[in-house]
């Protein structure tokens, strides 16, 4: 191992190599000049985005598509503050990213120097942890700690703030062989006794129901989830963050639960006598009114973060641990005890499945179509068709996100990439950039609304300059659709500042960047237009004009119980 003197900038790159970083996303500036100079003849690939916020989103896209730590970089002051939305987003969705920010020269910190911002202070509450490097000697240890913290336990964003003089100072890269964070607790194994209790509870249940979330994706536990589901043969829902954890085509898969979840998913949760919650956080968008959530159910809750246990819902069997490790143990315990419980509760379980199927048939999630206009649901069905369950689909937040979550089927985790907890507009396009760099061979569809798309329009330049074959599909309804929906339903249809009546000509816009694009508005043209976009070897911008006043249903109004669903425009459906 080399112990030659080298600059802090080079030491940082050395650390990144050791951490397996192949590419990262950033935007240079004054104080990161020494770093970018070191990068000039280095093999690590730097992707120049067009706005720092999108560097963070792209790093997230990279991390979400692979499970590896995504890296973004920005200069001091405005560069660093522009990262903040991406940091909060990754915090909310537990995505491992490391943000590297330049800081003004140590001697100037606190002097209101040019492009100085208190990055360490600003990002304290929106990172899992953050560091400020004081001297070059501590740089390697800190960088390796940052990667370790980001990726281990409940993943999250970690920021390292590096003053310009630390980049320039000469130091040694001494290999860091161990990380000692005495206060950093990671619980992975799960309590054996609790696992046993959970298994017993599962066999005792008459109406078990699986509630799987983003934790299953983060833990790479899809195979274990599938085995578990089949062992106990219970119906399962995947949350917005967990879609794909169980393949959509799996016979036990019901759909997404929650505010815009399916009837069967929400009725299933409400009727269950046992809810097995795996890597979820009982988010308000899933539970609706907490007091009325799953009122008959005992709860088994598996999560790696002890603070999630009992945070929103009292739990009967808490298991703190990595979902993958816990499910391995639980599956083993279940397999061992299964023969002894053969035929146990067979009749009620059959009845339970009958009920779930009846709910599914009563209100299936079927895409509505029209002869005169493209229904958004029709678009989702088409995306589902071209994806065949295999494409990476990124989205922003809003109506398009909900329709996609309802109707686009995913056969594996890490294909559905969206801003779940934070609900950040402008996420979909840069996330697609990160995902495409992570999975160059995969079809990446960036499904965005006309609002969110215009927040991330600068990144068309990034897509063009790297020739990324991303298929950008704009679901264009001319409104901030979800806000419009709420104004229609809850504010007497007083549409206040939600009209997006100017949208660039897609063909010209894409053409200006040197790639193809078009607008489609006739339902019978949609399939062909989409096929053409997919066939195109390069990027493609497809602007799909959809019916402007379509609302997302089913819907649980804010504050409602999840079984009090509004199934469609006219009347709420009476709950049995």
């Amino acid at each position, binding site marked *: 191992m080399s112990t030659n003197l080298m600059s802090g900038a080079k030491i940082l790159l050395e650390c990144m190599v*050791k951490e397996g970083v192949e590419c990262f996303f950033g935007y240079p500036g004054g104080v990161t000049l020494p770093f970018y100079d070191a990068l000039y003849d280095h093999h690590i690939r730097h992707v120049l985005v067009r706005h720092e916020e999108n560097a963070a989103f792209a790093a997230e896209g990279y991390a979400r598509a692979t499970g590896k730590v995504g890296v973004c970089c920005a200069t001091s002051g405005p560069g660093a503050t522009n990262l903040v939305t991406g940091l909060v987003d990754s915090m909310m969705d537990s995505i491992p990213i490391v943000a590297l920010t330049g800081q003004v020269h140590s001697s100037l910190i606190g002097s209101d120097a040019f492009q100085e911002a208190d990055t360490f202070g600003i990002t304290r509450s929106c990172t899992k942890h953050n560091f400020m490097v004081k001297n070059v000697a501590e740089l390697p240890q800190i960088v390796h700690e940052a*990667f370790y913290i980001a990726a281990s336990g409940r993943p999250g964003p970690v920021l390292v703030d590096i003053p310009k003089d630390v980049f320039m100072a000469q130091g040694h890269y001494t*290999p860091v*062989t161990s990380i000692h964070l*005495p*206060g950093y607790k990671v619980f992975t194994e799960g309590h054996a006794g609790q696992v046993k209790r959970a298994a017993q509870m599962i066999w005792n249940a008459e109406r078990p129901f699986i509630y799987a979330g983003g934790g299953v994706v983060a833990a790479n536990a899809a195979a274990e989830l599938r085995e578990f589901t089949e062992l106990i043969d219970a119906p399962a829902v995947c949350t917005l963050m967990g879609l794909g954890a169980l393949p959509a085509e799996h016979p036990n898969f019901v759909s997404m639960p929650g505010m815009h979840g399916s009837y069967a998913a929400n009725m299933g949760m409400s009727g269950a006598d046992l809810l097995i919650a795996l890597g979820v956080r009982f988010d308000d968008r899933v539970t609706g009114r907490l007091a009325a959530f799953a009122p008959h159910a005992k709860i088994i809750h598996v999560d790696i973060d002890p603070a999630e246990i009992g945070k929103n819902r009292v739990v009967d069997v808490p298991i703190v641990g990595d979902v993958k490790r816990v499910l391995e143990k639980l599956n083993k315990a279940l397999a061992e005890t299964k023969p002894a419980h053969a035929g146990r509760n067979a009749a009620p379980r059959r009845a339970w499945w009958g009920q779930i199927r009846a709910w599914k048939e009563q209100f299936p999630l079927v895409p509505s179509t029209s002869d005169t206009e493209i229904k958004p649901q029709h678009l989702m069905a088409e995306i589902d068709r071209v994806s065949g369950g295999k494409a990476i689909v990124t989205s922003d937040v809003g109506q398009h996100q909900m329709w996609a979550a309802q109707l686009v089927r995913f056969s594996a985790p890490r294909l559905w990439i969206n801003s779940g907890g934070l609900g950040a507009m402008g996420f979909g396009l840069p996330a697609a950039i990160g995902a495409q760099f992570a999975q160059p061979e995969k079809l990446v569809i960036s499904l965005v609304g006309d609002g969110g798309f215009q927040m991330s329009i600068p990144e068309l330049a990034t897509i063009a300059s790297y020739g990324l074959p991303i298929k950008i599909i704009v679901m264009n309804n001319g409104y901030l659709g979800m806000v419009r929906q709420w104004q229609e339903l809850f504010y007497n249809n007083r549409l206040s500042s939600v009209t997006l009546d100017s949208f660039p000509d897609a063909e010209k816009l894409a053409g200006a960047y040197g790639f193809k694009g078009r607008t489609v508005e006739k339902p019978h043209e949609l399939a062909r237009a989409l096929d053409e976009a997919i066939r195109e070897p390069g990027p493609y911008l497809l602007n799909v004009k959809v019916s402007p006043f379509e609302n997302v249903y089913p819907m649980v109004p804010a504050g409602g119980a999840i079984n009090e669903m509004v199934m469609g425009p006219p009347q709420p459906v009476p709950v049995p």
Partner: protein
Amino acid sequence: MLQVISLLLENKPGALLRVTGLLGSRGYNIESLTVARTLDPELSRMTIVVDVDSKLCAQVIKQMNKLVNVLQATDLTETPSVRRELLLLRVRVAPEGRTQVLKEAEIFGARVVDSSPEGLVIEATGDAEKLEEFLETMRSYGETEVSRSGAVAMSLAGKKLKLQPPVPTRVEMVRM
């Protein structure tokens, strides 16, 4: 309700802010906070008294335990513990009234640490209740000014501290 939290944390820049930020971002008001380093100069012991919704006490402790710099967060509200506070008090009292003040101080186990023509500075320790009484008494002798440390607490039940062992870096793990 007032929750008493004892924290052992790394003596690192920003560590204090992480703890107070966690409370502040949830809108909890900190009644008092004391912090100083422990026998191990790399660690600090902090005692916080904070006004928290009683349903959220356990959540606050869990969130604090999640902070990377926090080695141990313990709720001392209900557990057997000793709490003490230091109070410095300046009372403006004319020379003729001082004997009485000194007598009162003795009753409370307080002692005079400074004396000047304007008055006396008295140091008292005790639990919050006792100090309140002392303060009340002193105020009857003249204009007072007070500086209080806030509670310092120690658990009576020695809770074993579990430190996380070092872990190999990713590179090392790959090599293994």
